[in-house]
């Protein structure tokens, strides 16, 4: 049992020791030639980022002397160069986007020109947008302090007029009775897109004073506005700009962003305005080490590595026991809780053992090792943030919730358990350590996921590649329609009016048909009683959250809410008998009240956690592009006989699996019933049955239905499956865009493998493709979803639970289709690029599978053998070879 030492006084020294210990392993490996051989190095990369000197600039003369004096009072005698540059742009009325590292003084880039303008003209107003309420609160404290000092300067100066600068947050937590006075008094309103969308814009006349005088709109953490959230924001800005025009203002935009490939692009796409880019930081940076760690292989044949969570724990303890303060990033809420539990155990004992072991006289692990994630209640989160700043909390295990700029002070080490999914996100998380000068370290511990393994084995890919592009699509019809409705509610559209640069008259005409608006007196009047913004949530499908209630919180007292979960992940984490974990405390869900969005839990002591089994079904709504050309026919001819045999059997009549409960979901792709509603121009699909279908890649619009059908109980540490259960929960639906690839029936038939093996091969192939796709798209892995259609059982969708009974030749002859869809309603623009990169996708997937050292499949290529079957790797490899061969004969040129 470890004990926690006191906080070290010489952090640089302690860090050095911890690194040396880890590097010793690295160097041993290098000397013995392990690094150069085929063997698996433990530490695969060590990079030292040299310290950077500060570059300063004088305060611009144009800045109000009261502001300059206030800044000096706060200890700022000069600016960094990037701050001066940004201020100059803003003062010249140019929109600017600032991209500099964490802790480089980004906030001053907008606070200075905004306060300066308020000092010049008291009527000036500014609106700050933060992606979360917590960030706004954080910034409020800082801005408030500065504004107070500036105000005091005004009073101290005999010539100056006393100024009182109002700075307020306005969000869902703002009390109703304070709102009216904030609307009148606030010079600077700190809010979030959700509040602007549903609380400010629809009530703009109440905010007339703000909109009439709005000079600045600040968008902090710009890079978070990607995907659906960003597409919503783009439309909210369009609405904001309309309202500003109505009140005669035209604000300047100031954006700040973490490193992404296209910050200026993103800012321009979101606002429709030209931007200046400031990306040369003048801020100093301490020396930083970046290590890549790959957990050692423990079973070469199965390709099983030591658990990356255990490895993370080991790495973290190296630093922790030397008295360093650190943050550990986990990839999901569950792994956050697991790691918190594991870390506490290291100093206290495993869960279920209630007796606290000797943990040293001064420190209790419950206080110094904390978990942190979205579902925690705000008070608990504020307490943890305070603890981090004061140094009381020594280790925090967090989801990406702490990736953004919430002030948690200067930490010494950041450890990432698993690849954060994007290069930008990885740098952002690494940046939470070493915000000031002094030595710091970041460690990336790879899991066995294919993308993790790719990155850890190819460090140059990470260190040399540019960060990801943040893609948004404000013209996504679903999102656009929602916001045109909101905009029409706010101000009637005129016939010559555009929305951003879009002509929306056609949209308005359709909305008129359905009774949302009416054209009268030259304008489109909103003609609904409802308040459209209420029906549009920016973050997930619906705005409902599930709350988690501890039924035994306090004997005899009222029930207590201990957390919340967003609508989408509610069913999979809060179903009955699920284990819900908050900071290592285990709760079992006693009752899940889906309709009322509540889960009732009670604390338990057990040695397992649960994961849900989700079933996903994709139906094609419309093919936007696909290859229907001759190579398919050529292949089809080769297998005519086999097809003829299968064609007169309706696959749906065949019992696919003994479990009849699943039957209603299992509709083989392109069965006649499924095609009936599709338009006639999809000639290849219009024919009856499975035989006449598009093989090869397509992209288009799809309908995704997913449902939690069961769960498994997994033992802590060993990850043994110790039980399971079935669940009856409502479906969740979404309309999105997808890339898909159908493997022709004859190609399937041509495989020299048994039925079950062929199916396993497709599942394994899909698993690998789905993991390669984010690398090609440079997007976050969570942005994509996977589903396989046309297999008797949705193997890949039912995590690890493929049953091999009951599959029939007929069911399989319906050629399987692999869907990789945009995991957002309406889609966000990944499907079409993936479609054009199809050849690359196949080639890279082939490289991943054939290049993997395992024998018959592992989690890093086609999935673990236990889950995908013994021959999955062989079959997938063969399939890819056949596809590549078909590609060489002209197949893919037609697609490209």
């Amino acid at each position: 049992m470890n004990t926690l030492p006191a906080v070290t006084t010489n952090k640089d020294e302690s860090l050095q020791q911890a690194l040396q210990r880890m590097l010793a392993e690295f160097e041993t490996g290098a000397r013995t030639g392990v690094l150069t051989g085929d063997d698996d190095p433990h530490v695969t990369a060590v990079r030292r980022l040299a310290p950077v000197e500060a570059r300063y600039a004088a305060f611009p003369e144009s800045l109000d002397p009261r502001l300059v004096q206030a800044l000096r009072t706060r200890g700022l005698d000069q600016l960094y160069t990037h701050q001066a540059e940004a201020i100059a742009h803003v003062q010249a009325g140019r929109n600017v986007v600032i991209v500099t590292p964490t802790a480089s003084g980004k906030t001053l880039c907008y606070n200075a020109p905004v306060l300066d303008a308020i000092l010049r003209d008291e009527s000036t107003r500014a609106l700050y947008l933060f992606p979360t309420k917590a960030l706004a609160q954080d910034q409020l404290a800082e801005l408030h302090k500065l504004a107070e000092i500036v105000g005091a300067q005004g009073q101290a100066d005999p010539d100056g007029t006393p100024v009182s600068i109002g700075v307020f947050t306005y969000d869902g937590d703002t009390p109703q009775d304070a709102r009216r006075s904030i609307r009148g008094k606030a010079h600077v309103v700190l809010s979030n897109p959700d509040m602007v969308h549903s609380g400010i814009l629809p009530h703009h006349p109440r905010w007339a004073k703000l909109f009439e005088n709005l000079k600045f709109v600040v968008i902090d953490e710009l890079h978070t506005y990607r995907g659906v959230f960003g597409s919503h924001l783009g439309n909210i800005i369009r609405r904001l700009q309309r309202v500003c025009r109505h009140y005669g203002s035209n604000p300047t935009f100031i954006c700040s962003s973490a490193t992404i490939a296209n910050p200026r692009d993103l800012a321009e796409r979101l606002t429709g305005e030209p931007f200046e880019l400031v990306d040369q930081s003048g801020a100093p940076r301490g020396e930083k080490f970046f290590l890549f760690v790959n957990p050692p292989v423990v079973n070469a044949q199965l390709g099983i590595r030591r658990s990356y969570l255990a490895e993370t724990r080991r790495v973290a303890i190296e630093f922790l026991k030397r008295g360093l303060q650190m943050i550990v990033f986990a990839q999901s809420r569950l792994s956050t809780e697991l790691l918190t539990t594991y870390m506490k155990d290291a100093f206290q004992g495993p869960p279920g053992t209630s007796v606290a072991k000797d943990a040293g006289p001064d420190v209790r692990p419950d206080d110094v090792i904390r978990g942190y994630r979205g579902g925690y209640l705000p008070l608990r989160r504020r307490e943890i943030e305070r603890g981090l700043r004061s140094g009381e909390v020594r280790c925090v295990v967090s989801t990406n919730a702490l990736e953004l700029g919430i002030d948690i002070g200067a930490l010494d080490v950041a450890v990432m358990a698993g690849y954060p999914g994007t290069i930008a996100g990885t740098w952002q998380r690494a940046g939470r350590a070493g915000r000031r000068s002094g030595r710091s370290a970041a460690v990336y511990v790879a899991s066995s996921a294919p993308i993790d393994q790719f990155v850890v084995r190819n460090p140059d890919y990470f260190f040399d590649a540019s960060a990801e592009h943040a893609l948004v699509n404000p013209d996504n019809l679903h999102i656009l329609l929602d916001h045109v409705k909101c905009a029409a509610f706010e101000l009637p559209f005129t016939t010559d009016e555009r929305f951003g640069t879009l002509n929306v008259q056609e949209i308005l005409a359709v909305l008129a048909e359905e009774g949302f608006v009416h054209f009268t007196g030259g304008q489109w009047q909103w003609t609904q009683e409802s308040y459209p913004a209420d029906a549009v949530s920016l973050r997930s499908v619906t705005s409902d959250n599930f709350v988690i209630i501890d039924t035994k919180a306090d004997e005899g007292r009222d029930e207590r809410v201990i957390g919340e979960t967003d609508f989408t992940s509610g069913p999979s984490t809060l179903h009955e008998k699920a284990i819900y974990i908050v900071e290592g405390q285990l709760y079992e869900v006693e009752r899940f009240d889906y309709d009322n969005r509540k889960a009732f839990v009670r604390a338990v002591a057990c040695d397992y956690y649960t994961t849900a089994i989700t079933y996903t079904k994709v139906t094609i709504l419309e093919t936007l592009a696909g290859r229907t050309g001759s190579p398919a026919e050529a292949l089809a001819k080769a297998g005519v006989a086999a097809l003829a045999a299968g064609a007169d059997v309706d696959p749906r009549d065949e019992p696919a699996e003994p479990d009849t409960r699943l039957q209603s979901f299992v509709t083989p792709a392109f069965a006649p019933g499924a095609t009936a509603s599709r338009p006639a121009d999809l000639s290849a699909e219009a024919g009856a049955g499975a035989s006449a279908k598009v093989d090869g890649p397509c992209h288009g619009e799809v309908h995704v239905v997913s449902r939690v059908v069961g769960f498994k109980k997994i033992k802590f540490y060993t990850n043994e499956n110790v039980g399971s259960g079935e669940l009856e929960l409502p479906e969740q639906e979404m309309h999105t865009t997808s890339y898909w690839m159908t493997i022709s029936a004859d190609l399937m038939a041509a495989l020299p493998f048994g039925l079950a093996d062929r199916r396993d091969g497709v599942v394994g192939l899909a698993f690998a493709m789905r993991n390669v796709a984010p690398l090609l798209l440079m997007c976050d892995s969570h942005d994509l979803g996977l589903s396989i259609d046309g297999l008797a059982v949705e193997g890949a969708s039912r995590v690890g639970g493929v049953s091999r009974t009951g599959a029939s030749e007929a069911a399989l002859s319906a050629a399987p289709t692999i869907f990789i869809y945009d995991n957002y309603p309406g889609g966000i623009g990944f499907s079409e690029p993936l479609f054009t990169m199809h050849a690359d996708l196949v080639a890279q997937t082939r490289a991943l599978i054939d290049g993997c050292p395992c024998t018959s499949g592992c989690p890093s290529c086609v999935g673990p053998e236990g889950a995908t079957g013994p021959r999955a790797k062989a079959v997938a490899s063969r399939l890819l070879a056949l596809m590549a061969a078909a590609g060489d004969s002209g197949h893919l040129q037609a697609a490209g």
Partner: protein
Amino acid sequence: MRDLTSRLREIVRRDHGGGAVVDPVRELTYVPDTGDQAMDPSRAAEALGGTRVDTESGAYIVVDRVWEASDWHGRRMVGGYAPAADAPLALFDSRVGALPGWADRVVFFDLETTGLSGGAGTLPFLAGCGWFEDGAFRVRQFFLSAPAGERAMLEAIARTFDDATLLVTFNGRSFDVPLMEMRWAFHRTAAATDDMPHFDMLPSARRLWSRREVREAPERASCTLTSLERAVLGFHRLNDVPGLEIPARYFHFLRSGDASVIDGVLEHNRFDLLSLAAVMSHALSMAGDGPDACRDPSELMGLGHLYERAGQVDRALEAFERAVRDADRALRPHAAARLATLLARLERYDEAAHAWQSVLESSRGRDDAGLALRRRATQALAIHHEHRACDLAAARGYAQQLHHTAAGRARDDAAHRLSRLDRKLGLKRTADRPFDLDF
């Protein structure tokens, strides 16, 4: 690939993927949207018996109607409802009631809107103003035949308010006036309501009449204008347009130009204005005449509440006492509790205890309200007997009852009281009771 319009249609019509989108409500019989052609403001004005007004800022329709002083509304004639300068408005609202000349030109005001949600898209399409002239009640309604005329209509409303000495609404403090402020702000003009004395009848009406349905939470009791005019004025509307239907009727009119659906809305609005004037007049005269003017004990209680709030203690006591005397069994404990609370506030403790006693005697209800009332009475009596009457045995009896019926904190408090009383009485503590450290 389908054309944009049909894709849009599909998205608008079908669920957006998560059930988050509200289906458009089809009002009445759905009329296909034919755009602007159907609308003819002049024809609409004629159909509604009004006049079309064109200004530089837009067009609207004005409809004028008069109820003569001798017309009947409910049990009285219209002329009798005109506000009297000496009416005790200060009992209801000390601020506006104290304004000299408030009664000179009272304008009753009521809006009909395209929704209740508020927000920039909620349009007041009909604004009714009513006032008395030589005993006759005149109503001037401003109606938007097209939303584009709103600015002109707002200007006209502002002119109507020009010489008003008091604006009277029903729930105007939270609905009509903020909505109008919003509309004026929308058009970036000063709000005509800004410095206008305003009296909202709803809170006073609640105080006076929500006791008709005896509840512990009077704010939840039904107190709509239509229920008041039935109960208080004895007026029953025929074929009234339900408020919920009003936005849909307006949308239907916009799409079809069919003014026939609006007639009923105009009438609804007019009756709201007249009844508002009548209910206010009735309330003022009841408050002026005192308990003799009340027709039932619930009104007596409401009146007592009103007097108490206005600081007229003697009149309040009289009203409550008469309410206790005249009330039926359901109401009596509530009236007695009111009386007891007021007496206690006046430090007339023995009388208060007597009133609490009658709460216990008259309260038999097994409902939550009845139980809560009995608990309050028991607690008050326990306190009274322990500290003022110094009848410890009686106090103990009440405390024991309290301990018996209470839960949670109240039960803990009762336990404390019991053990303290036991000590005072010199009784031996029972083993299961915790040692009392609070004493």
